[in-house]
């Protein structure tokens, strides 16, 4: 469904991605793990069209989207929950969710989706009229995921959903990610430093180092792999 072929991305002179190959099939949960600065977030930003690739191609359902503007990529159904959540700080929770549905015009459908995300995260319903910037980290993450769901994505890109959150909230969020995949059949691509959780949740995983993919296998096999254990699981 989503295919990255030999992607090279630069930030000025810095060669951040040095030939990434990656493939995601419909309905899968894929995890990309790696250390700080390996290029995980850049991979997502390149997919979303924020930092387009200098070389190589991104394909979505056979269509080349390498140089498509970011807002058109969202129209195709690829939606990202970026690193640091990027909640609109001065909009209320409900307005943030409304922004997620920016491209849609079906009022009834949007209303149903409001109910759906309020069901997933009841705390957001309580905080409906609160300003986004005043939410706690965990609530912001829930809001960020919900905002992305409001666009009814076909592919959901999640950048470090566990970052800076209490273990119990992380568990809750990963539970919900799984639920979204199963109930909505949404394809999910997770970028994570928390390798254990990410690989457990994923069908398949990729390991990234210094701008290159070094390993790929099923989530289970990667969890059992000696190198992965040593480098990312601390066992």
């Amino acid at each position, binding site marked *: 469904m989503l295919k990255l072929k030999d992607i090279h991305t630069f930030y000025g002179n810095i060669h951040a991605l040095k030939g990434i190959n990656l493939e995601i099939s419909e309905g899968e949960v894929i995890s990309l793990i790696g250390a700080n600065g390996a290029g995980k977030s850049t991979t997502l930003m390149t997919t979303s069209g924020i930092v387009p690739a200098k070389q190589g191609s991104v394909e979505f359902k056979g269509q080349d989207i390498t140089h498509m503007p970011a807002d058109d990529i969202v129209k195709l159904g690829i939606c990202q929950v*970026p690193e640091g959540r990027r909640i*609109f700080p001065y909009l209320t929770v409900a307005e943030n969710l409304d922004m997620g549905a*920016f491209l849609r015009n079906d009022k009834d459908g949007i209303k149903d989706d409001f109910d759906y995300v309020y069901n997933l995260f009841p705390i957001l319903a309580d905080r409906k009229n609160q300003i986004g910037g005043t939410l706690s980290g965990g609530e912001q993450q829930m809001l960020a995921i919900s905002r992305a769901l409001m666009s009814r994505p076909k592919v959901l890109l999640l950048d470090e959903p566990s970052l800076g959150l209490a273990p119990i909230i992380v568990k809750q969020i990963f539970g919900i990610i799984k639920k979204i995949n199963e109930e909505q059949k949404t394809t999910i691509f997770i970028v994570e430093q928390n390798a254990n959780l990410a690989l457990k949740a994923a069908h398949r995983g990729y390991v990234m180092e210094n701008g290159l993919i070094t390993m790929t296998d099923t989530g289970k096999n990667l969890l059992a792999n000696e190198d992965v254990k040593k480098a990312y699981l601390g066992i």
Partner: protein
Amino acid sequence: MRLFKIILGVAVVGILGFLGIKEIIADPVYFLELFLGGLTRGSIYALIALGYTMVYGIIQLINFAHGEIYMIGAMTALIVASVLGLWGWNSAVIVILAFVFAIVYSCAYGFTVEKIAYMPLRTAPRLSALISAIGMSLFLQNYVMLAQTSEYMPFESLIPDFKFWEPFSHIITSVEMTIIVTTVIVMILLGILIKFTKIGKAMRAAAQDKIMASLVGINVNRVISTTFVVGSATAAIGGVLIACHVGQINFYIGFLAGLKAFIAAVLGGIGSIPGAVLGSLVLGISESMFTGYFWSEYEDVFAFSILVIILIFRPSGILGRDETSKV
């Protein structure tokens, strides 16, 4: 230092307040005249300041060419009104067409200025865009001077003296009243646009986080263009209204009006829309009081002193948010 500031503030307000109350009691009608004159002036500032503050809010740029857009609005209205006047058209039709043409022309200029002078510099350092803005301002002034004339041209008021307003016209003329009413209507419409429409929501989102805005599917370039167009439209309305009020225009009127509106936007808190309106009214009324009670020759000195004082004591303005409190 903080205590000193507070004592100084209380002392200044106290003395001015005491003198002010004495003056008001001595001649309340004169005070009312000054107040309404200031309100008129503030309304015009507000119409221009909105453009500054909206553009700043979204791309953190002081659009110095904005005053010129206002001047172009007034110029277009003058040309349209003169031509149609010569043809002997009905005056009500002339007013409407003059406004329509002024708005359309100014919007086209605002849109083009952004595409030519600012869009290519979107990722450049902010100073480059600022210099580009100053260049655009000088270019437009000189362009209009060459295309029209450097002389002052009389602008016959498009707004008639309303019959029903006669009993009050010694305190506030019907032109002034029209300015205030029009401004209020424009503000309400703009408030609705920003609060409730899709493009308004997109503007607010893009002002807060452009990358995230494009990640929810907003075309940020289009939002920026819209912001310039909306700002230009309100400036054009301001330009036509003030030309009716003052009765003469030339290519240079945008410069000082633009600077004053900029001061008003900074006073209110640049980037904040309610701030721009409040700052404009405060500046307009206090300027009017200053010229009325002190020295009228030092009107501009007073406005610029206000700018210096705000920048020293409260750079974020009356309603501005402190940069540090951003999440």
